[in-house]
């Protein structure tokens, strides 16, 4: 462990010993003041001969900080737009800006563009200083920066075009995934090489959090995105159904953990002491915080899948570790807040500290709420509702964004070498954003609990009190307006903040003064002094440390992943479940492309209210050909898993063309282009082949004549539409494929006698009663 990496000889010939007394005077309470850039003393004395000058790369920090602010505005604007779409569906303008395509754009923009660039700004600024070294390679830094921005632009172009893998926060298609991997490795190489040439022995705790981020995100990204391409812009996940769901939420939850939590904790452990001019409350607590957090976090993913077809043991394991996670999280929060003890008066004066204090408080709140929601009985109510949306925005707006804003306001005068344009504006930003955030979170709590209770309500005659799903959605519209108001305030406050930073930038000097420090010279090779010895000795520590981190996350992952893949009983086969026909497969691709999973689940939970509302609860064996799974995480519309055969073809046709024609009051966007766009039969053939590569057992006929089979089935549906009194729709229209898919959904287990149903879980077994209140 790094804290134990002290020089055993107790001897150091480092010349800075005599300077350690200077340290006490270096507090930096006034974060508004321009930085004191001290040029190193010109003529080095004899004492300084073993030293050299290092100039930090400030330009790369300026780049990432600016990108974070710009993309933050874009991401929040898209967020506000989709919030308004739910209250006012007419804002679903064209297929490209419909909710199902814009929602992934919003999540990707705020996570990977806004938060991502803020993380990189924090890492590049603090690592250089904590390591007393310039980044290893300016070229790698630039490749990282421009590569990351290119990825963001690609995301912004492809997601509205419907190019998606259909897995939340992992929507980007395989060519972009490859770019992410390359850029991430570039970043990692640059970071670890900087660690290697560092002139500071101890690796400060903030850097531990960065290391955990770099290692874990790489592992998560690679394993969740393993897919077989079926074209330049289309791929199928190598996992299916239960296993795909498990991998996705292992990834999804740990993206929250290692992209939105650990790097921001690193940020907190560095920038909070800087802004306050005093060290963190307890460094030892930070060590606990780090190891417990990274060890526990990685297990928690399955809590996203309670009461689904995921095996119960995985679900319980996820829940237990999620509840345990509460403690280290609060250890971190307490550590942050207690750093302020005796200095609370500074919070009143200093906007930077205001952002940090509320940010850390929201970290505490979200990390209490999360474990609570991971308890199965609470999750039975909260899952698929806006409570999730409230929870995630408490974390995103409160923790991630506020820590970023605090850092930006602290960095701006230093990076731009000019005083912050207006401290008052920064305070105004803080207050408007805080009130906006409160409106957002409270309205979504109300919406989530309202809808959750309405779904499970039975009247005195034993019937569902709100059998029409639409009623449970329409009831939320007033809360959606409140949410939109909160979001508008938050975005407005951010615009004010961005303008404040822009004005600060305008006041910059003509040329930036370089930030240069004097550091011990690194001596290598023969005849090196003891200085070189101690350096050599601890060069290896980051490696040991990184291996320990990797071990912590891999052991935990293996404990959940290996059994999920190895235990055959976890996913009992159902003989009557067959692969999708080529046309249905294409319909499913359209379902993925339009982002239907953003509003519809395909997972009937084993609760009385759900089986009464939707039908038989979902079985693991029903999803074995689902590459990727489409269980969803939010029901803005009803569950669709038992949709097959429920409605006529004509009803579905009209519903896709104009949802309000069949469901007055629906907030679903219309999809008129499905009626005009044609299916490419050759593509279907290719995609069937790709599915076969993944192990889907298509027969020889399907593999050779998939296109023709699809056309035949499409013609039947087209004819059926006319029989039902509908319009004449050419067989090659996309809507026909989507209807084929919808009519197939969840029907396989109805197709054969009960004897063929899975043995271990009889279909007639009593569903688990929904908890409480029924």
């Amino acid at each position, binding site marked *: 462990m790094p804290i134990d990496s002290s020089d055993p000889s107790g001897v150091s010939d480092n010349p800075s010993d005599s300077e350690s007394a200077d340290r006490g005077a270096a507090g930096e309470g006034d974060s508004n003041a321009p930085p004191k850039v001290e040029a190193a*003393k010109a003529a080095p004395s004899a004492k300084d001969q073993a030293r050299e000058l290092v100039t930090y790369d400030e330009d790369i920090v300026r780049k990432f900080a600016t990108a974070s602010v710009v993309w933050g505005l874009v991401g929040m604007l898209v967020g506000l737009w989709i919030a308004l779409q739910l209250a006012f569906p007419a804002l679903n303008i064209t297929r490209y800006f419909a909710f199902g395509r814009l929602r992934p754009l919003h999540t990707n923009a705020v996570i990977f563009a806004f938060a991502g660039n803020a993380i990189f700004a924090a890492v590049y600024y603090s690592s250089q200083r904590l390591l007393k070294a310039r980044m290893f390679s300016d070229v790698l830094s630039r490749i990282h920066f421009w590569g990351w921005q290119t990825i963001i632009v690609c995301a912004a172009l492809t997601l509205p075009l419907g190019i998606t893998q259909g897995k939340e926060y992992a929507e980007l298609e395989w060519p972009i995934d490859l770019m992410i991997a390359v850029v991430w490795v570039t970043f990692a190489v640059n970071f670890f090489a900087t660690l290697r040439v560092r002139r500071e022995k101890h690796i400060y705790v903030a850097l531990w959090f960065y290391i955990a981020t770099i290692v874990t995100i790489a592992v998560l990204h690679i394993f969740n995105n393993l897919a077989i391409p079926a074209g330049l812009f289309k791929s199928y996940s190598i996992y299916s159904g239960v296993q795909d769901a498990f991998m996705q939420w292992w990834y999804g939850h740990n993206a929250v953990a290692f992209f939105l939590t650990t790097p921001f904790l690193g940020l907190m452990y560095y920038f909070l002491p800087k802004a306050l001019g005093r060290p963190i409350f307890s460094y030892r607590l930070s060590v606990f915080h780090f190891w417990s957090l990274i060890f526990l976090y990685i297990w928690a993913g399955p809590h996203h899948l309670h009461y689904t077809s995921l095996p119960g043991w995985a679900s319980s394991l996820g829940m237990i570790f999620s509840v345990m996670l509460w403690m280290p999280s609060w250890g971190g929060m307490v550590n942050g807040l207690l750093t302020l003890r005796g200095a609370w008066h500074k919070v009143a004066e200093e906007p930077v500290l205001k952002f940090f204090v509320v940010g850390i408080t929201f970290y505490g709140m979200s990390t209490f709420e999360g474990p609570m929601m991971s308890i199965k009985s609470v999750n039975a109510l909260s899952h698929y509702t806006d409570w999730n949306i409230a929870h995630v925005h408490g974390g995103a707006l409160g923790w991630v964004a506020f820590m970023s804003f605090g850092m930006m306001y602290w960095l701006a005068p230093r990076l731009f070498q000019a005083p912050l344009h207006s401290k008052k504006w920064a305070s105004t930003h803080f207050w408007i954003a805080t009130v906006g955030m409160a409106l957002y979170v409270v309205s979504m709590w109300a919406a989530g609990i309202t809808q959750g209770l309405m779904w499970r309500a039975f009247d005195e005659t034993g019937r569902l009190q709100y059998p029409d799903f639409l009623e449970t959605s329409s009831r939320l519209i007033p809360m959606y307006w409140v949410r939109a108001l909160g979001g508008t305030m938050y975005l407005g406050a951010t615009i004010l903040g961005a303008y404040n930073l822009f004005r600060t930038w305008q006041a910059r000097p003509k040329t930036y003064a370089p930030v240069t420090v004097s550091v011990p010279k690194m001596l290598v090779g023969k005849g090196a002094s003891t200085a070189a010895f101690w350096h050599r000795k601890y060069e290896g520590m980051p490696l040991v440390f990184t291996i320990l981190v990797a071990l912590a996350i891999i052991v935990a992952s293996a404990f959940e992943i290996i059994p999920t893949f190895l235990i055959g009983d976890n996913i009992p086969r159902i003989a009557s479940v067959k692969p999708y026909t080529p046309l249905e497969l294409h319909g499913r691709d359209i379902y993925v492309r339009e982002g239907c999973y953003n509003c519809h689940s395909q997972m009937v939970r084993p609760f009385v209210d759900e089986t009464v509302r939707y039908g038989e609860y979902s079985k693991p064996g029903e999803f074995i050909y689902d590459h990727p799974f489409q269980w969803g995480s939010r029901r803005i519309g009803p569950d669709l898993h038992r949709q097959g055969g429920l409605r006529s073809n004509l009803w579905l046709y009209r519903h896709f063309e104009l949802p309000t024609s069949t469901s007055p009051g629906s907030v679903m966007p219309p999809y008129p282009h499905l009626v005009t766009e044609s299916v490419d039969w050759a593509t279907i053939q290719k995609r069937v082949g790709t599915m076969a590569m993944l192990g889907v057992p298509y027969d020889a006929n399907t593999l050779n004549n998939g296109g023709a089979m699809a056309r035949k089935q499409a013609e039947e549906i087209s004819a059926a539409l006319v029989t039902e009194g509908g319009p004449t729709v050419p067989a090659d229209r996309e809507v026909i494929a989507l209807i084929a898919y919808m009519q197939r959904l969840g029907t396989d287990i109805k197709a054969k006698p009960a004897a063929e149903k899975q043995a271990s879980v009889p279909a007639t077994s009593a569903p688990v009663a929904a908890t409480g209140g029924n």
Partner: protein
Amino acid sequence: MRMSELVSNMTPSTMTEIALILFVIVFVAVTSRVMRRKARVQCDEAAQLPLFDDTAGEAGVSARRS
């Protein structure tokens, strides 16, 4: 014994129990490490790191004798 057999023979709670034991081991290891008297001194010094990183002439905590 093959891995799949081994895993199949576990009861659902086995994984949870092993996980818990692993966590306790990690926790005890970190605790014993961090609570040593020597660690306290090192930690107090390490905590100072962010505060002295901008000024010229600083070399870092590592140079100081504990």
